[in-house]
């Protein structure tokens, strides 16, 4: 089931782009438009998580947070450009679950959202992705095809995860490398080629051919 995220942000561009980003990463979003009674709107939207700016017209994010806390325990992430320790302390005291400062790395924001949602709404079953009969098991770092398994390294899992998530579209090498860097794997261009080749070998070992296709000058696609 898709999780719904409420975005409380007064800058229209950030609001819109944040929604685009979250929707692109598999979340449903709703924006609070009337800042005079943000908490009530959050109640109506009934989201799984709230992204809350501190500096809002009218009421401050802190008071919105404490008003939301009066009726709900849903996770709240403060997103703000004020990065003083007082603000951070305030946000935690008032019941915020995380504090991210602008300008943020989207990867870090998404990781925070993901880990909070996983913690608050635990789902049964292990996470796995499937594409054209191949199944990627994230927890055990294995690739399954017709009952046969191949063990994968950390880099290989992340590369495959990225390709599976973008199945059918072309992923440029630069995008893959950036994604790996966001996941603390500092792989350069050559190392990516090496990893892709190794994955291809493992795939052909499982009996899948031409799973990862190279698009000349564009990138890879599955």
């Amino acid at each position, binding site marked *: 089931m898709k999780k719904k995220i409420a975005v409380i942000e007064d*800058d229209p561009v*950030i609001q819109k*782009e944040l929604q*685009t980003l979250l929707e692109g990463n598999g979340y449903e979003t709703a924006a609070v438009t009337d800042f005079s009674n943000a908490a009530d709107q959050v109640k109506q939207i009934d989201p799984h998580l709230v992204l809350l700016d501190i*500096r809002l017209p009218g009421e401050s994010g802190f008071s919105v947070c404490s008003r939301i806390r009066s009726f709900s325990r849903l996770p709240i992430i403060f997103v703000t*450009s004020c990065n003083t320790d007082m603000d951070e*302390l305030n946000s935690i005291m008032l019941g915020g679950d995380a504090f991210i400062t*602008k*300008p943020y790395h989207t990867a870090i924001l998404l990781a925070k959202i993901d880990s909070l949602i996983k913690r608050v709404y635990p789902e049964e079953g292990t996470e796995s992705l499937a594409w054209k009969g191949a199944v990627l098991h994230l927890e055990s770092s294995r690739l399954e095809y017709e009952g046969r398994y191949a063990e994968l390294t950390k880099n290989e899992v992340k590369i495959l995860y990225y390709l599976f998530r973008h199945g059918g579209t072309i992923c440029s090498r630069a995008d893959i490398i950036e994604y790996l860097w966001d996941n*603390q794997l500092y792989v350069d261009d050559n190392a990516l080629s090496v990893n892709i080749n190794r994955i291809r070998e493992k795939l052909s070992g499982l009996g899948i051919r031409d799973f990862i296709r190279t698009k000349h000058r564009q990138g890879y696609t599955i």
Partner: protein
Amino acid sequence: MNAGQYWKNRLPFLCAQLLGMTALSVFLLINGNSRDVTAAILLVWLFALAVCMFCSFYVRKKRLERLLSLAEDLEEKYLIPEIIQKPAEAEEEVWHRLLKMAGRSMLEQIGEVKRERKEYREYIEQWIHEIKTPITAMQLLCENHRSDFTREILGELEKVSRYTEQTLYYARSGHTEKDYSVKPVRLEQVIHQSVTDNKYLLLKNQVSVEVGEFPYRVYSDEKWLRFILNQLIVNAVKYKSSEPVLKFSGEEAGDTVRLRVEDNGIGIDSQDLPRIFDKGFTGKNGRKVQNSTGLGLYLCRRLCEKLGMGIEAEPLEKGTVFILSFYRNDYIYQVQEQ
């Protein structure tokens, strides 16, 4: 007090005395007093005069010396009019009033300047918070529309946010005590964050990054530490050589945890090495590379001092290693265990 000057100032008074003595002796002699009597009277006068003059000189000298030593001992010397004893003479009274007036007007001036400085600093901080909103918006726009073009812009945005951060920390470095919270920090996490902060810079310059195992927790302020690491990373890229490598490794040495940031760049000249943390120092390398401000490492050292950390640079066979040392404090663990 200069004795010569003192007696010179007393010259008119002494002359008047001398005149008085002459007039008296002439008067006494005309009235038929004997020379001996006249001489005796003059002697008594002279003696009394000398005793008075020397006593008053001595007393004044003592008083002024005490004042001087009082001022020496005082740390904030401008407070001297508040603590000296009440003036005994009419003239001193006036000087005292003048001193107080001067002090008050100076304090007013300083207050004014301080207020202006504070307002300016607050404005800068405010401005930085405001500029972050459009930066974030641009960043999101680029991330949602990935292409080679937006990737270039993201690289530039990374620079913009680095400069704004530097400004913020420069504005704040004078009064860090208001803005840091020392917490247990996982070094590895901070390093990864710093690398991510400079992702586009490192990717563009094809720097290969190696992060070693860090089982260490240190007590520090995460935000400031990240700023310091960012500076070191930027420097390593700025002064890189071909096939740049950036290596983070940690080690324990006694009661310190040391974080080593190694690069294989052009290195620092041994003559420049002792001065690289000075404000505005750019040295030989600064002349080779554009936009060296001599500010980055200076800020690093200042922040390290405030955070109670050590920072030093050592030359390697090729490149430089910066070593950050964190002091372990057993008391913290003891308190926590209880």
